[in-house]
């Protein structure tokens, strides 16, 4: 397996500064002119990804100083609950379940604007929480380990691949540490609900001693180096960024279903600067904000129509959608294939993933599966 150091590009920055590894990361953007107000944002998105948006927002609101604090999603949730009265003006996170829980418990305030009205229904709950990007949960495979074999197209094909390879994949399957990584728990719990193959998957992970990673970056790094050959439930944008640099990494959107996780934003009820928080939220959902998310941050915008026409046209013409995720299909992903892609709806049913008993049950199942082979 060939390993190659990346130039310090966009993709690497996303990968190398994994929020999950740090508890907290504080960034300050002073106002461009005389400071009129201050906007405090808590986010789970890495600072480099969000920075272009913050800077662009400041160009139209030069009097606003921005404080961006970055947390691991679970830490973010805890921190928010502890910060009553001194909390942020805006909450951004990809842990939809935890965000929904906060909104359900009455910590959010409604916000309505032309931008929020334009959102699809499944990306807006109660006009209090809004999805602003989405992200497929994908499988990444180091194709160097396949010999003249077709990439698996679905979970069951993945399972038969694991069965075929047997000892070759022992200790070389990676997935999130669901206990520590919020989005990992969310996608795993979603699999448990959705997938008929969940039991077999859990068993396969157990018998092949799957490794648990604290972040997408660490998992992708291990995949690129060949330390692991299969990475399960990665976030699509990270995987794509790495695949650009390491062609050996192939990304699969499983055909049985591919869950879409949303990054969401809400304005806390106790926000001190509601006005700028609302303005930044509208900016995130605006044409310009969504374009920046797509082009600068390499994230999937929630609204359609931000990719240039050529890409859309070529993508739309491809009636047969390949299971691999490549650039041509990035931004218009959702418009392409509606049956395979399954957005985890932003709503009440996410509350179930925050249930303590449920969490205990899933973690116990996981532990039991892992122990069974020791």
């Amino acid at each position, binding site marked *: 397996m060939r390993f190659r150091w990346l130039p310090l590009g966009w993709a690497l920055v996303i990968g190398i500064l994994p929020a999950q590894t740090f508890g907290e990361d504080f960034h300050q953007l002073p106002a461009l002119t005389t400071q009129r107000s201050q906007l405090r944002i808590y986010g789970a998105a890495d600072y480099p990804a969000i920075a272009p948006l913050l800077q662009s927002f400041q160009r139209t609101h030069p009097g606003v100083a921005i404080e961006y604090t970055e947390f691991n999603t679970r830490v973010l949730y805890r921190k928010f609950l502890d910060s009553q009265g001194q909390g942020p003006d805006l909450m951004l996170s990809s842990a939809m379940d935890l965000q929904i829980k906060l*909104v*359900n*418990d*009455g910590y959010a305030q409604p916000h309505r604007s032309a931008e929020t009205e334009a959102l699809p229904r499944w990306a807006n*709950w*109660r006009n209090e929480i809004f999805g602003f990007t989405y992200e497929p949960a994908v499988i990444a495979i180091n194709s160097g380990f396949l010999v003249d074999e077709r990439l698996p197209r679905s979970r069951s094909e993945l399972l038969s691949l694991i069965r075929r390879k047997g000892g070759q994949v022992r200790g070389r399957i990676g997935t999130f540490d669901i206990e520590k990584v919020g989005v990992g728990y969310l996608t795993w719990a979603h699999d448990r*609900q959705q997938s008929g193959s969940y039991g077999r998957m859990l068993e396969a992970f157990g018998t092949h001693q799957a490794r648990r990673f604290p972040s997408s970056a660490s998992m992708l790094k291990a995949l690129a180096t060949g330390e692991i050959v299969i990475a399960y439930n990665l976030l699509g944008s990270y995987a794509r960024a790495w695949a650009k640099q390491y062609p050996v990494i192939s990304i699969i959107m499983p055909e049985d279903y591919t869950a879409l996780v949303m990054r969401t934003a809400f304005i806390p009820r106790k926000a001190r600067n509601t006005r700028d928080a609302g303005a930044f939220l509208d900016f995130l959902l605006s044409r310009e904000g969504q374009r920046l998310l797509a082009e600068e941050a390499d994230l999937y915008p929630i609204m359609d129509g931000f990719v240039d026409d050529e890409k859309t046209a070529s993508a739309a013409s491809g009636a047969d959608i390949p299971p691999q995720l490549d650039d041509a299909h990035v931004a218009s992903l959702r418009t392409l294939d509606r049956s395979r892609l399954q957005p985890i709806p932003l*709503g*009440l*049913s996410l*509350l*179930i993933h925050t*249930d*303590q*008993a*449920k969490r205990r*049950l899933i973690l116990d199942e996981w532990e039991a599966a892992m122990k069974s082979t020791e």
Partner: protein
Amino acid sequence: MSVCLLLVLAAISYWATNLYGHRAARLSYDRLLAGAALQVAESIGLQDGEVVIDLPRAAFETLALAPEDRVFYAIEFVDGPLITGYSGLPESAEGSPGSRETGFDGQPPARFFDAPYSGEMVRFIALERVLKDVGLTQAVRVRIGQTLRARDALVADISWRALQFVALFIAIALVLIMSGIWMLLRPLRNLNLALSRRSPVDLSPLEVSVPQEVEPLLRTINHFMAQLATTLDRLKRFTGEAAHQIRTPLAGLKSQAQNALEEQDATLRQEQLKRVVECSDLLSSTVSQMLNQATLAHRFQSEMFDELRLDELVIEVCREVAVAALHDGVEVAYLGDREVIVQGDGFALKQMLRNILENAIKYSPQGGIVEVNIEARPGTAGVKLRVSDQGPGIPVEEREQVFEQFYRSPNNPRAGSGLGLAIAREVAVHHHAHLTLGDNTPKGLVVEIHFSRGRVR
């Protein structure tokens, strides 16, 4: 009026649908809540003595049918700590607002109640489940609460639909009422038009086609016009007769006065002038009778009846005519001895009595007696006033005709207006009394007036 009634009806029906909306919303969303609670309760189990809960996604999907509402839940030991969910949810209390209990088949009863939580009013359901394992029994309680947005929206929706329906109903009813009134009044308008187009002397029946409902009105109008025509006819005849009755004696007067002017012989002239005076008397009495009749006709319409002493009235009239009678050599005798009361108009009754008495005196021979009597018995209704004379009487075949105005018997040599008896009869009829003529013995006329409602005092 009908519009008012309509508005009241509309208000009532709107209020009723609103009430129904509240009930419907509560029932349907309570069912969702109950369904979710039962699913949650089902997911609780005992495993190796431990309570294991695998919350079903379907329960939350059920609750998410109210897409905008927040949900709070707690699963706890009945007498112990929280197992999972929210701590500090409100307790259900007896008599808390909106409280009601429901039983499900084979399940312990569930209690619904309203309580504020997390800054909003929340509808809660609480139910208990007993878990049994070998040698172990655990009672757990499930509480689920949901905010009221979807309920309120449903109520608003039902009410809004009801309002639309009620508004439509009012509009249609108004149009129907208006057109109904218009159609109903159209025949009356036609009738009015037909009446106003008529010449004032045309009293023939109206020939207008009207619906059944208006027919009685048309009949009454036609009946009234027929009566008016009769009255008008009678008036015309009377005027003609009256003119004739006045013109004839005037012509006689004139010719006799002219004759007297040309007469050389003093005795003859004397004779002629006497006749002129007689003629004038007759004319004057005719005119006064006619005036009397007009006065009476007016009184009949305007005067109310009083209680009168008939005997006193009779004596008074007898006194008035007695002197003139004596002058003609006729005696008037009142033979009554009872105090009698009748209902009537004193002036009219006197007029009647005077006409009858003067008539009797006029036809009585020299030295004759006119007897006036009142017959009445105490305790029984009915009074008879009788005036008898010893004159020539009236033949049976003329007895109806003498009551006609200006009728003069061809065999009657005496001058007269021909109005006296007619007036008497009119007064009698007006007093519901019966006036009859009879024969006296050996000769003469008996006038009897029977007041059926008179009585002895």
